[in-house]
């Protein structure tokens, strides 16, 4: 029957095209990493398979310490982010503060990793803001304390920095999951049975919610164990964690070092896979142990006092993120800044101008990459969702795993190999290759942000439009897009923010010829140039924030005379 859901032959190609664009570089990249890991890389003389790369890897003196730092910082960051996010949601659910916090999540998430890490380093470093505040205690002689922070041996500063980024991400996942549950009704009935609010949340809501948190948690785990840019800023350097160590090897002047680097990239996958598997086993164990706790009838002892705990955690999170941005801004305009002084002794614009063309090019590069990748991601996502709607498809959970694949795979483990694909296609080190590699990370977020609002669009408007004689194209352009303008712009802004934050994809696919804001910010940090790091960090943070602001304000302006279009 030709009905509500047919039409658009090319639309049928969208899911396949999207998956191909999406999976090809990841799979080719994994292959291009695994083959050299076993000795096969003809360009460098490796024509036979061998275990030599692995022997070189395990002979590297830095490896044990690098692995230890990776595991400690990655696991601490994931576990702590999860616990803090749950505590905040469990204790604050239903309060006005929580509603406000929900709105603050988007700008928090829009903050690029590198900018946040730089700002955080400006807070906790020996001459950072925290030490300046504490100077009367820790530095009676007015000299910066001799602390190895950031860059501590176990990567705890790195873990703390990652928590600032991952707790909001998990909170967003919790909020998204709550929207699909009868959470308020469940809470109300548990409280009518005498459960205290926090106990009610933990016993009734969390068990229902956890299914939807699983993939985001695994993504956080994979990210924390393989992060590069934040580790370069906040992690130890002798040796660094595994992923930055591998980056160093990939960039080594001695090309033969690529062999142990690819073996290390394979080890990185094993590490992430083992961590996810262990977490899953932990889930099973906790679920088994919790069964008795869930049914023991305990109503909980934490009353409203628990809210103070969650409130303090959330406030601290926001305070650190805000202070980090402020620190970036201060350093970018600071002339001279003596140690215990809380503010610079003098202000200057020179930090912004002394690099002349240096600021403009990375800004334009980041802007271009972000706009191009989020626009393509938006087109593909809209195509897939419209195809799904017209054919009445109900995607399974397995598709969700595919969408998460680039987020669950360590970047360092496939980006080197993906270059092989780009070279084969003749687009290596060009804009197309960089945009494509950005797309791998932008697309999942755009899809995840847009899928629910798209599926929730009131189908009756579409029926009404069809019965008024409007064709599908007109209906899509004149009814669906305007009705979805708000979520579409937010999804695009999220995609843009993801792109602006990316470090490794620009580095690898661009072969060092694309200097984005992220790359400049990390480089300035490595050179110890705090003022320049402040400039690039601030720009990097301001760009996605500006786009977010636009995405939030634009629909309000366009629909200023349409009360029915106000955000719910």
């Amino acid at each position, binding site marked *: *029957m*030709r*009905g*509500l*859901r*047919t*039409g658009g032959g090319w639309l049928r190609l969208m899911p396949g095209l999207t998956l191909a664009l999406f999976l090809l570089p990841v799979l080719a990249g994994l292959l291009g990493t695994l083959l050299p890991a076993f000795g096969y890389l003809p360009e460098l003389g490796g024509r036979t398979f061998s275990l030599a790369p692995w022997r070189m890897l395990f002979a590297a003196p830095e490896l044990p310490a690098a692995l230890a730092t990776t595991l400690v910082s990655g696991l601490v960051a994931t576990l702590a982010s999860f616990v803090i996010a749950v505590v905040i949601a469990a204790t604050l659910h239903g309060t006005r503060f929580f509603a406000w916090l929900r709105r603050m999540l988007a700008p928090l998430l829009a903050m690029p990793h590198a900018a946040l890490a730089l700002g955080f380093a400006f807070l906790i470093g020996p001459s950072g803001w925290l030490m300046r505040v504490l100077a009367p205690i820790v530095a009676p002689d007015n000299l910066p304390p001799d602390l190895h922070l950031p860059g501590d041996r176990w990567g705890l500063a790195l873990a703390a920095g990652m928590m600032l980024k991952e707790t909001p991400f998990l909170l967003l996942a919790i909020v998204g999951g709550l929207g699909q549950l009868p959470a308020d009704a469940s809470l109300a009935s548990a409280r009518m049975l005498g459960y205290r609010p926090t106990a009610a949340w933990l016993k009734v809501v969390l068990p229902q919610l956890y299914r939807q948190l699983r993939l985001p948690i695994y993504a956080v785990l994979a990210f924390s164990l393989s992060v590069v840019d934040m580790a370069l800023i906040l992690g130890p350097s002798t040796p660094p964690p595994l992923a930055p160590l591998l980056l160093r090897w990939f960039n080594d002047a001695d090309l033969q070092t690529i062999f142990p680097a690819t073996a290390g990239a394979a080890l990185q996958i094993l590490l992430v896979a083992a961590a996810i598997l262990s977490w899953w086993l932990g889930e099973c164990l906790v679920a088994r142990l919790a069964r008795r706790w869930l049914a023991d009838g305990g109503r909980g002892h934490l009353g409203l006092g628990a809210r103070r705990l969650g409130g303090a955690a959330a406030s601290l999170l926001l305070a650190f993120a805000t202070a980090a941005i402020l620190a970036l801004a201060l350093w970018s305009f600071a002339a001279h800044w003596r140690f215990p002084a809380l503010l610079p002794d003098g202000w200057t614009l020179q930090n912004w101008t002394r690099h002349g063309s240096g600021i403009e090019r990375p800004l334009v590069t980041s802007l271009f990459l972000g706009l191009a990748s989020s626009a393509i991601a938006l087109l593909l996502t809209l195509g897939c969702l419209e195809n799904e709607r017209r054919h*009445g498809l109900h995607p399974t959970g397995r598709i969700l795993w595919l969408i998460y694949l680039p987020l669950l795979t360590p970047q360092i483990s496939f980006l080197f190999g993906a270059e092989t694909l780009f070279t084969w296609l003749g687009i290596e080190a060009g804009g197309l290759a960089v945009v494509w590699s950005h797309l791998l990370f932008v697309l999942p977020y755009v899809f995840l942000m847009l899928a629910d609002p798209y599926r929730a669009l009131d189908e*009756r*408007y*579409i*029926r*009404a*439009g*069809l*019965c*008024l*004689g*409007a*064709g*599908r194209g007109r209906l899509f352009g*004149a*009814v669906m897009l*305007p*009705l979805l*303008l708000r979520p579409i712009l937010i999804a695009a802004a999220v995609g843009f923010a993801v792109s602006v934050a990316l470090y490794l994809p620009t580095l690898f696919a661009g072969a060092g010829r694309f200097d984005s804001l992220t790359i400049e910010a990390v480089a300035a940090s490595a050179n110890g140039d705090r003022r320049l790091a402040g400039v690039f960090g601030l720009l990097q943070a301001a760009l996605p924030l500006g786009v977010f602001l636009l995405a939030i304000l634009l629909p309000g302006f366009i*629909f200023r*005379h*349409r*009360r*029915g*279009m106000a955000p719910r």
Partner: protein
Amino acid sequence: MSEAGLVLEGVALWLGARRLVGPLDLTIAPGEVTTLMGPSGSGKSSLLAFLCGTLDPAFRAVGRVRLDGIHIAELPPERRRLGILFQDDLLFPHLSVGGNLAFGLPPGMSRSTRRAMVETALAESGLAGFADRDPATLSGGQRARVALLRMLLSQPRALLLDEPFGRLDSRLRGRFRRLVFERALAQRLPVFMVTHDREDAEAGRGKIVTVGEDLTDNNLE
């Protein structure tokens, strides 16, 4: 082929193995009202969705439908020339009142003609000067009238009513009902209404067909 009106032949609606409606044979002449009565969940609205071509794939429907002699079940929804009014007015919230009405107009007229037709339609319904209004600022009765005008401007050949009076209070209800039937009669449109309200059905002054379970159940609700 010359027969005017809406004709249903052997139309039946299935949900899985359960037959909800039919088989139904109906002939609705221009200007006539036929009412299908049944409790909620009896498949009345889905039957209209089938006629419109917007049936949810979970349902299965069989039978032939002719409008002015043309088999419309094979046509895409936007070419069937059926006008439908739902319980909710479904005015597009992002368009002005005039924008909603212009959406209903067939394409291919100049901008000024479209504007003039919209203004005329509004003026004839006592809504002169409403073209630039935000639909969200209108009263329930005004919104219902705009929805009716939008549908009529799309120049349908038949009118389907899916409990369109259910949301209005009793005072407005009778007035709006009279307006709808008057307009349908004036334009010689066959009207097919589904409702669970006995008063609506009787106001149609046409044939009444009942489907689903015993109606007394429904009246007890």
